């Protein structure tokens, strides 16, 4: 492909965005070609190391299947290449006429993980708001928001990453950091070198559990019971931060009363974790407080009881005295730059943001609409019709629950525009597909809130005809008549300058510091001099905000659906979303060398379950839930990896979409999160001959 470069032979530092970790990297160019990517030495996030996914940014950039020209779907259903001008013109015309005919709110924007967060997210939010619609959707509907809400409802903020390296005890809930947050590994090892203990709680035994001092394997969705058991243990033995509770907490009595029922025996009954192990973990907390890192992964939020489980964990963190500490619930500050979002200037709350009626906390706290409810609006079952959607680097036809419904809904739109690198299953449904730019083709500001560091990425390449997100929103806005007002900047550099203006950091200075700049000195334990940003200004163990919404005031533990509504004909519990080491959700599965490690999908099973059903390793089976069915091969795991009765399928496969089985309408009442990890299913044998011709892969690696 023809490529224009900023420098022909050079090494350019920037940040990797093959996953959200954003390690600092050096991109090596030779005669305009990216020949190598190596770790940048001096960044505090990755400290001179990087993972194989990052190196594969070359494979992504030069991928032969990349879309390089805008595509328009013709009446016969085939795509035809058109010019970018024509594409932008036609899309803008159609958006305008939908706005004129039905109102601006009938148009939505959906920003995916492939685009990134921070600035990319803010561009999308700004565009849709300036257009007049409150309907901003994102991948956060099924990742991140649940944890954000769970913590914010208690402490008023959330800093996703404690500094594990200075902890005396680390407790991980439902997460597999070697794969999803590789730099955590160094911090764990640093902490363990100093004698710290590691506790891993996960329904699935990942290798990190071999590194742990204690590993506990709960039934999916029962973490809340364990958290409450630990809260009880701390209160009963009077080993909690009494000063904090006296001065900074509301609702302590309520949670103390509620915690009483969570005896170790009761926790064992709920979660399957032995009572003795619950007490052992409790003792570890007592012995090591306050320097404890509690960390919840996405494993906790993909349930219909997720937010309350996470609230209970946040309360546990407060009781253990971890609030405001480097190793604990540290409250980061923002840089103080200008905001691209328009919520302060234009309120569109009265326009009926989709899902805000059902999940008010989601819109109140995250200004995010509910992507599962959006499907109903697309299908004409909402308060008003959702007619058009502009999707950037999101793949809901694979990653949103209830795939059949998602495809039906997206197909019902009058206008679906997808901006992506590849012709994904979502892009295939679009009326227009625009070629998206990778992270190597844009310059943007990144934040690392836990370290209060700001970074600028370098635009390394530009492929003529392939424009980045900023240009997409800029060009559409100008064509729609609000560009002058809301997207006046000609270049990304101008935007970045405008963002930085109120701060004392200049763009030039930032560009000179690929290792990042600390934008504000870090202050610990701020809650002692400053009210926490909750409605009451205190730590809300009981939330009157939620009570007024008719939701549970304290984070009551509700047993998960598969236990509460156990069904005889769906005897297995399916969890989805355990990570594959080289994929990132639905991304990277078309990188050929990665497929030598993850060649195809499989359902992971306990050997006893397989034996009972007379199923062989690699045999094709049919997995069915109340929602749908999926045919998939079996991988029989080591007997300690999964509990009997629990099965696991990866969530990102385009060819084997496990979301055919997951519920879109069994939602957490606070976050609206779908039930993805705890789906009752049945496994049936299919005709045995289907398995015979398949050459078994050796390892079914995770």
């Amino acid at each position, binding site marked *: 492909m023809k490529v224009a470069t900023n420098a022909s032979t050079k090494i350019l530092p920037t940040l990797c965005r093959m996953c959200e970790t954003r390690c600092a990297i050096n991109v090596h160019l030779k005669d305009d070609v990216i020949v190598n990517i*190596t*770790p940048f030495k001096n960044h505090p996030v*990755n*400290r*001179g*190391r*990087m*993972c*194989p996914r990052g*190196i594969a940014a070359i494979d992504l950039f030069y991928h032969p299947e990349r879309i390089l020209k805008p595509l328009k779907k013709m009446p016969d259903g085939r795509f035809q290449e058109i010019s970018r001008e024509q594409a932008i013109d036609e899309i803008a015309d159609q958006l305008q006429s939908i706005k004129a005919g039905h109102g601006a709110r009938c148009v939505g924007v959906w920003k995916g993980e492939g685009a990134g967060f921070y600035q990319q997210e803010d561009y999308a939010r700004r565009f849709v708001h300036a257009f007049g619609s409150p309907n901003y959707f994102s991948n956060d509907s099924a990742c991140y928001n649940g944890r954000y809400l769970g913590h914010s409802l208690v402490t008023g903020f959330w800093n996703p990453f404690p500094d594990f390296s200075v902890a005396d005890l680390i407790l991980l809930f439902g997460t597999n*950091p*070697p*794969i999803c947050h*590789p*730099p955590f*590994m*160094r911090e*764990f*090892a*640093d902490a*363990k*070198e*100093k*004698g710290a203990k590691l506790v891993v709680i996960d329904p699935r*035994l990942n*290798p*990190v*559990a*071999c*590194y742990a001092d204690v*590993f506990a394997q709960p039934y999916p969705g029962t973490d809340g019971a364990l958290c409450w058991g630990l809260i009880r243990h701390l209160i009963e033995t009077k080993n909690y931060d009494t000063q904090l509770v006296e001065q900074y907490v509301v609702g302590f009595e309520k949670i103390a009363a509620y915690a009483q029922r969570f005896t170790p025996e009761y926790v064992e009954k709920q979660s399957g974790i032995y009572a003795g192990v619950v007490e052992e973990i409790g003792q570890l907390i007592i012995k090591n407080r306050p320097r404890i890192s509690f960390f919840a992964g996405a494993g906790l939020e993909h349930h219909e009881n997720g937010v309350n489980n996470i609230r209970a964990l946040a309360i546990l963190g407060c009781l253990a005295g971890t609030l405001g500490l480097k190793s604990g619930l540290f409250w980061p500050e923002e840089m103080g730059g200008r905001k691209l979002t328009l919520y302060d200037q234009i309120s569109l709350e009265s326009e009926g943001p989709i899902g805000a009626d059902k999940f008010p906390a989601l819109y109140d706290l995250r200004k995010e609409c509910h992507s599962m409810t959006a499907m109903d609006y697309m299908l004409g079952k909402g308060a008003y019709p959702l007619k058009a959607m502009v999707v950037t680097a999101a793949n809901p036809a694979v990653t949103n629950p209830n795939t059949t419904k998602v495809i039906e809904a997206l197909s019902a739109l009058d206008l679906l525009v997808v901006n992506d690198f590849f012709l994904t299953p979502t892009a295939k449904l679009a009326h227009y597909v625009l070629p998206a730019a990778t992270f190597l083709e844009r310059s943007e500001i990144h934040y690392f809130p836990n370290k209060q560091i700001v970074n600028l990425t370098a635009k390394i390449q530009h492929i003529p005809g392939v424009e980045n997100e900023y240009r997409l929103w800029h060009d559409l806005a100008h064509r729609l008549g609000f560009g002058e007002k809301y997207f006046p900047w000609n270049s990304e550099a101008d935007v970045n300058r405008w963002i930085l203006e109120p701060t004392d950091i200049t763009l030039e200075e930032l560009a000179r510091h690929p290792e990042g700049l600390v934008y504000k000195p870090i202050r610990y334990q701020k809650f002692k001099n400053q009210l926490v940003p909750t409605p009451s200004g205190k730590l809300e163990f009981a939330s009157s905000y939620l009570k007024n919404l008719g939701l549970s005031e304290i984070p009551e533990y509700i047993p998960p659906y598969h236990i509460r509504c156990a069904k005889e004909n769906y005897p297995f519990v399916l969890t989805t979303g355990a990570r594959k*080491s*080289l994929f990132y959700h639905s991304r990277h599965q078309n990188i*050929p*060398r990665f497929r*030598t*490690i993850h060649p195809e999908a499989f359902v992971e099973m306990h050997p006893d379950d397989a034996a009972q059903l007379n199923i062989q390793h690699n045999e094709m089976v049919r997995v069915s839930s109340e929602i749908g069915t999926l045919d998939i091969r079996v991988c029989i795991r*080591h007997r*300690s*990896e999964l509990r009997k009765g629990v099965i696991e399928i990866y969530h990102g496969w385009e060819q084997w979409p496990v979301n055919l089985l997951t519920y879109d309408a069994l939602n957490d009442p606070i976050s609206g999160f779908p039930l993805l990890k705890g789906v009752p299913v049945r496994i049936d044998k299919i005709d045995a001959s289907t398995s015979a011709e398949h050459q078994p892969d*050796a*390892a079914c690696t995770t």
Partner: protein
Amino acid sequence: MKIIYVEQDRCLACRNCERVCSFQRAGGFRQENTNIWVHIDLDARSIFTMTCLQCESAICMEVCPATALQRNPETKAVTVNEHQCVGCKMCIAACPFGCLHFENLRQVAVKCDLCDGDPACVKTCMAGALHYADINELAQRKRRKIDLKLSKHPFFLQGLFPK
């Protein structure tokens, strides 16, 4: 001399090292093509990672009838000269650690050559378990670690004869 050494108690078994090793040699991944390997024993819940230690008197080098195994003058790595290798596989039989393997495509023995002094596995070890350094640095690291742990021990905190 610099070698790749593993700080076993820092390895979390992400397997990145195996992957990049295989990728850079073969494009794709095959467990048997990696020159570094992570052994995860789920019964014992243990992790063990191993690669070639570039022995001072390397038995693979000694047994090679074709003198295909040679020491790189700069990196001091024991490397296979593929033009000279006759594919007899003696080195594979001789190495007590299993650090050589046979490349079926090219019909030659293959081993870790320290990537000419810039080992890819080390750059990808985000846990900081792999190091490319003098082996005595490992001894130093171990000493520092044990000091850290023991200095916190009551025995040392209170002196030899606590009151």
